[in-house]
């Protein structure tokens, strides 16, 4: 208890903690106004997340893309770039995995590996292209990202519809079983939840993110460029290359999300009229996690768990899932503007002042 208190005293932990509590409380207030039962709602939420091994598994499945997306946005942020194009990179990653997964016939592990790699590569190149246009033509990456999201969507639709469509459906054909990255035994253990190797890759990605940025010379370059392009240039770094590299890595993270969804969850790609939006949630996750590896992991877990749990809320308490989106919004808001929390909770303010 003492330790817990000590941990909480430090502002970096206290603010998100209070933010989560306040966010949930606000959600409860809105539920009461809307005539719902918040206690039942949150009970259903919790029991949806932890209710069964299936639910735990599926909650993890929801968390994986969010963490990856947070990493994708985060590494760009750290390099001074704002990548709102993760959605497009996801699409390209999925397309890449789908192409290899459906068009080639290879032995199991090799096939899956190649599919993942190709998807990651496509995602990476898609990101790198944004970086390249920024580095060479000075075009703001925000607009290029937006345009690239749409373009990716239609490129993918084009390929699926013309080359890989499953007759009579609105989706591609299935990937070959050899390309699957699902973990059958684990899924069975988890009551059929869609478990896949993406989980392991996600953990590796988190570690990579942390080590690469903080411990390697390449990460040092990324951070230097992120903080001051001029100083980086003065110090002999090839700034355009670093920008392209950062966006490539960001794109690889995005692309991996796409490969996980195709090879581990759905086994096909649906022709859908919009991108997934996971890339935008990634912005929230990245910021909530302060763009650090551990932070992104934790915030991804939080956002993912709440998102997954919200379905239980509508089943168990008839509460519309939008409420949870609001709660997520509130939480990010309070974390981003800690001053608000401090204004409302002067005791927090006092404590954190002493800390500073």
């Amino acid at each position, binding site marked *: 208890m003492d330790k817990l208190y000590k941990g909480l005293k430090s502002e970096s932990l206290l603010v998100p903690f209070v933010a989560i509590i306040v966010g949930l409380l606000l959600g409860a207030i809105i539920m009461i106004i809307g005539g719902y039962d918040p206690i039942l709602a949150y009970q259903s939420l919790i029991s949806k997340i932890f209710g069964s091994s299936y639910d735990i598994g599926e909650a993890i499945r929801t968390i994986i893309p969010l963490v990856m997306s947070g990493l994708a946005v985060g590494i760009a942020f750290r390099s001074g770039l704002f990548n709102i194009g993760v959605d497009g990179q996801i699409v390209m990653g999925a397309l890449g995995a789908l192409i290899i997964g459906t068009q080639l016939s290879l032995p199991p592990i090799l096939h899956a590996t190649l599919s993942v790699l190709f998807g990651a590569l496509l995602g990476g190149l898609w990101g790198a292209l944004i970086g390249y246009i920024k580095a060479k033509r000075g075009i703001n990456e925000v607009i290029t990202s937006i345009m690239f999201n749409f373009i990716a969507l239609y490129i993918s639709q084009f390929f699926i519809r013309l080359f890989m469509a499953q007759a009579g459906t609105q989706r591609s054909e299935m990937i070959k079983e050899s390309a699957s990255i699902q973990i059958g035994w684990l899924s069975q253990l988890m009551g059929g939840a869609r478990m896949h190797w993406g989980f392991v890759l996600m953990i590796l990605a988190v570690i990579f993110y942390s080590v690469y940025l903080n411990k390697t*010379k390449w990460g040092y370059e990324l951070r*230097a460029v992120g*903080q*001051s392009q001029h*100083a980086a*240039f*003065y110090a*002999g*770094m090839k700034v355009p290359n670093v920008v392209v590299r950062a966006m490539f890595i960001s794109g690889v993270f995005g692309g991996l999300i796409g490969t996980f969804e195709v090879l581990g969850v759905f086994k096909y790609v649906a022709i859908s009229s919009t991108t997934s939006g996971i890339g935008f949630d990634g912005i929230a996750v990245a910021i909530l996690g302060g763009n650090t590896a551990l932070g992104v992991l934790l915030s991804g877990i939080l956002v993912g768990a709440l998102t997954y749990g919200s379905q239980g809320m509508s089943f168990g308490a008839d509460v519309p899932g939008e409420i949870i989106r609001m709660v997520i919004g509130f939480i990010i808001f309070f974390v981003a503007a800690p001053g608000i929390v401090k204004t409302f909770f002067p005791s927090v303010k006092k404590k954190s002042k002493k800390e500073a």
Partner: protein
Amino acid sequence: MTTSDIVLELKGITKRFPGVVANDSISFQLKRGEIHALLGENGAGKSTLMSIVFGLYQPDEGEIYVNGQPVVMDNPNKAIEKGIGMVHQHFKLVEPFTVTENIILGMEPKNGAKIDIKGASKKVKELSEKYGLDVDPSATIDSISVGMQQRVEIIKTLYRGADTLIFDEPTAVLTPQEIGELLEIMRRLVAEGKSIILITHKLKEIMEIADTCTIIRRGKVIESLEVARSNPQELAEKMVGKAVNFKTEKQKATPKDFLLDVKDLVVAGEKGRNAVKQLSFSLRAGEIVGIAGVDGNGQTELIEALTGMRPVQSGDILLEGKSIVNQSPRTISEAGISHIPEDRHKHGLVLDFSVSENAILQTYYQKEMSPNGFINKKAMDELSTRLVKEFDIRTPGIETKVRSMSGGNQQKVIIAREIERNPNVLIAAQPTRGLDVGAIEFVHKQLISQRDQGKGVLLISFELEEILNVADRILVLFDGEVVGETTPETTSDQELGLMMAGKHEGGSMNG
């Protein structure tokens, strides 16, 4: 003396920042029509005090009286209303705006709903004529020189009807000519009945123009004295709290092999025209070559060309006989050139990196610092700890972000890093800008010690005093060309000044 002669009085002003007491119960009086200098080391609390007077910061304790009336200065508007104007150390000008727009900002004359730009321009013209502050009202700020920008700042305060003007290190960024002109302007202002507070690190200027000097050390007022009854030595000692040495001690140079040969160098400037034109010179081991000149005569372009940061149009640069022209900054730095850049915030440092991260900015990728691509934290920390010690960098620790350090200490981080690399050639651009005398002395010593170890040092400075004190040989740069070469022993301020203005009398010789 009646109270009405005191235009501004501060009583017991205290301002605390986390970890520092920037101003410790400061009391201060400004008399009508005087020029009152404020002197103190970097971080002594001068800027903070003036920010309080101008309403940017609120003091934790103490009162401010203007013309004998107590005033709560809670925002700059209040100060402006009370006739106080401030010319900030870092100019507060909106770059894409015109001179007129900057001056009228916040007090725009109107013509219906529209700004009366014509009327405004006229008013600006009038003011500039009255005080001899020549400016072009329709030029944009980014197209005029630093000296001009400062005039705009001065007109801005006058336009707002200021009686009391505060200048925070106004000469740090000016050329000798411009400094002369500024001092002239100040005299004229005082003659018009204005009162002036002048913050400067240059004792010469205080001696030349100030009536009174208040010395601040570590946030406390040490003394207010009449300048006419004092001397630079006394001022400096009171400021630092111990004896100081002005003239940097140095032996005669013993130049050896040629290290750097620049031949017919042509470099393009920002606006398409050539900023460096057919420039030739050389630098030998064991000498300090000073490049004197007014800002904007090709210094920046020359330095950037030498260090690979800007492409060269034609000509050659040889380092120990090998051409390094149009090589990347990395290649050049590896070939043995260190570079203390002109703009420490923009180029020299990653402000949000720690001291130790900044210490490896040039060497992070090398074997010793990052074997197998992983940065060796231990080596990095050892290096920075050693540099902090050897170069007397005042910082709470090596993990401190350099952004929060004082300008002088930031500069020391750069100097330490660049010297530590043990270069053959050290290019030092404006290495002491904005530093106090103690820090300046330190930097000069470092440059000379490099020379004495057989390195070549190229010192680019707008400060004649610095050039005369430190350089062994002086080149004068004008309009992208070397218009004269001389030595400190054989020249004078006047002669250098003439050459810098483009008069070829000092015996023009190229190379």
